[in-house]
């Protein structure tokens, strides 16, 4: 099936004229038509625009002017502004907003010939770990528990639609954003590779802001190599994002097969959280054994402040969110709920437009930034953030990369972890520290739990050393031989 190909395989097939870009895009659009009503992975499907992009790709292929992604069908998280295509951020408050411009990351993917199938579902404003907070409904994971086929599982979040789409073969790859784990956790839950690159590696321009110092655009795909191909297109300096890093983009794809011989892999002892399921602990040890067998040296390291990462995050992220989301006031664009006066208009618009989780975070953020509490909460959190970065810097003086589990569990069912916000937040306990420090991290599928659900391992690296992450992830991928496919998929 065309939908089962990897990006690298499809690229070769298109160039060899084994099939056309229109064939490839049509196969994916048909799969979306068949499965999206159930999975709800896409909020918007762009049939006509995708086919037009595919026709242009075929023209380029015929002329020999193809680029890295010519004709490759992708899903775009609905947090990236796409010119002429509605962008919702998973929220009601943007109303019928249609961006008149293209985000830098998606513009670069288009420059390289990609086809955009549509806009992928997500937690509202990327705030969530289950895709349950989307104003456009939850996403069903294409994976099923072996023992409980009736249970509807979450794909993870916030980039849940992206992960479900790539996993179910409704796209060959996808963009995501990762503020506290929103690429890596859904990648782990859906058996995918997902990378949060270094802060500054991918431009945030045109990405709807959640927490500006923590938001990282990044790719999803089904293999390490495909993920590297996508990042190569998405990355690069952008003068329109003042935090975009002016550093060269290396050949990420070439790094995937580099191997790990001679690398030093750190095991942060603080990640041995109490209550970690034994199969996740076992998988972690298995991952270390694989890397040892491939020639790496495993070293114990300490990240003493990592246990404070999540609580620090839940000050910094809501604080930045409350500031970023102040722009949604019902005046200039998006939803408006008229009121008795201007203040009433603001308050009614925001009450109607924001869901419960966004409202909670805006309120927490407002409180921790308010007069009299700023030093006790926000300033303290920024200082602990500095300590967390220092932990990583010291660890990376001794090792080339760190290996940890991606998430403390496999995917849970819709409705679980909903009774207490903190229970949901704990999903991100292993992923959040890399956002606070801005260091790159990737999740790679490494095995299945007793229910047949995917589990990922996370590799964390030095700033701007994504190449080593691809090398380590490539070695894990080769050793794991992860070949499981979800029960719900195109042609499945």
């Amino acid at each position, binding site marked *: 099936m065309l939908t089962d190909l990897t990006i690298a395989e499809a690229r070769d097939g298109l160039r060899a004229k084994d099939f056309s870009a229109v064939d490839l895009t049509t196969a994916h659009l048909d799969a979306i038509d068949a499965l999206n009503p159930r999975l709800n992975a896409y909020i918007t499907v762009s049939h006509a625009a995708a086919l037009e992009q595919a026709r242009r790709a075929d023209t380029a292929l015929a002329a020999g002017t193809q680029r890295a992604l010519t004709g490759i069908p992708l899903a775009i998280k609905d947090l990236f502004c796409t010119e002429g295509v509605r962008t919702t951020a998973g929220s009601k408050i943007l109303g019928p907003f249609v961006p008149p411009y293209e985000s830098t990351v998606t513009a670069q993917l288009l420059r390289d010939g990609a086809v955009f199938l549509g806009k992928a579902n997500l937690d509202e404003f990327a705030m969530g770990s289950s895709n349950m907070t989307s104003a456009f409904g939850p996403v069903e994971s294409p994976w099923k528990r072996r023992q409980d086929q009736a249970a509807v599982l979450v794909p993870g979040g916030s980039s849940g639609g992206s992960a479900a789409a790539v996993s179910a073969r409704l796209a060959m790859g996808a963009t995501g954003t990762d503020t506290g784990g929103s690429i890596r956790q859904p990648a782990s839950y859906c058996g995918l590779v997902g990378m949060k690159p270094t802060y500054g590696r991918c431009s945030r321009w045109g990405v709807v802001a959640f927490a500006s*110092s923590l938001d990282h655009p990044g790719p999803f795909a089904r293999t390490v190599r495909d993920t590297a191909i996508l990042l190569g297109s998405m990355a690069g300096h952008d003068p329109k994002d003042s935090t975009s890093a*002016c550093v060269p983009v290396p050949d990420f794809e070439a790094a995937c097969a580099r191997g790990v011989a001679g690398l030093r892999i750190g095991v942060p002892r603080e990640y041995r959280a109490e209550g970690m399921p034994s199969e996740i602990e076992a998988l972690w040890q298995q991952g270390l054994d694989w890397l040892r067998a491939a020639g790496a040296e495993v070293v114990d390291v300490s990240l003493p402040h990592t246990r404070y990462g999540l609580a620090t995050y839940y000050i910094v992220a809501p604080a930045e969110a409350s500031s970023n989301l102040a722009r949604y006031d019902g005046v200039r664009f998006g939803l408006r709920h008229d009121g008795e006066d201007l203040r009433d208009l603001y*308050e009614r618009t925001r009450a109607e437009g924001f869901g419960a989780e966004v409202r909670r975070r*805006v*309120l927490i953020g407002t409180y921790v930034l308010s007069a009299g509490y700023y030093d006790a909460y926000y300033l303290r959190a920024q200082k602990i953030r500095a300590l967390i970065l220092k932990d990583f810097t010291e660890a990376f003086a001794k090792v080339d990369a760190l290996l940890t589990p991606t998430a403390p569990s496999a995917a849970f069912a819709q409705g679980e972890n909903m009774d207490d916000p903190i229970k949901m937040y704990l999903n991100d306990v292993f992923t959040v520290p890399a956002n606070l420090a801005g260091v790159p991290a990737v999740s790679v599928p490494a095995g299945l739990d007793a229910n047949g659900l995917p589990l990922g391992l996370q590799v964390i690296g030095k700033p701007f050393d994504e190449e080593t992450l691809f090398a380590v992830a490539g070695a894990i991928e080769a050793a794991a031989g992860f070949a499981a496919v979800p029960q719900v998929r195109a042609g499945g």
Partner: protein
Amino acid sequence: MSLDHATVRRIASLARIRVEEHEVETLRTELNGILGWIEQLNEVDIAGIAPLTGAANMALAMRADVVTDGGYVEKILANAPERIGDFYAVPKVVE
């Protein structure tokens, strides 16, 4: 530090989010749960530590102060709730 009813109302007012009277108690419980959990940060010794504002930890680049783009009146007005000529028409926000 535990939020009371009036403080929840004050925060909602600062955030410009209308909260109905019957929602206050649930919100108060949720916010206190989160803030109580965050209290663990008080055990960290932060003496002499400089705050980290962003992950990039880099000096922002300077750029020339020149017009580099523009001329998109129709594109920009496409999302305006109403227009008068080439201008946004919105409720009065400045007294």
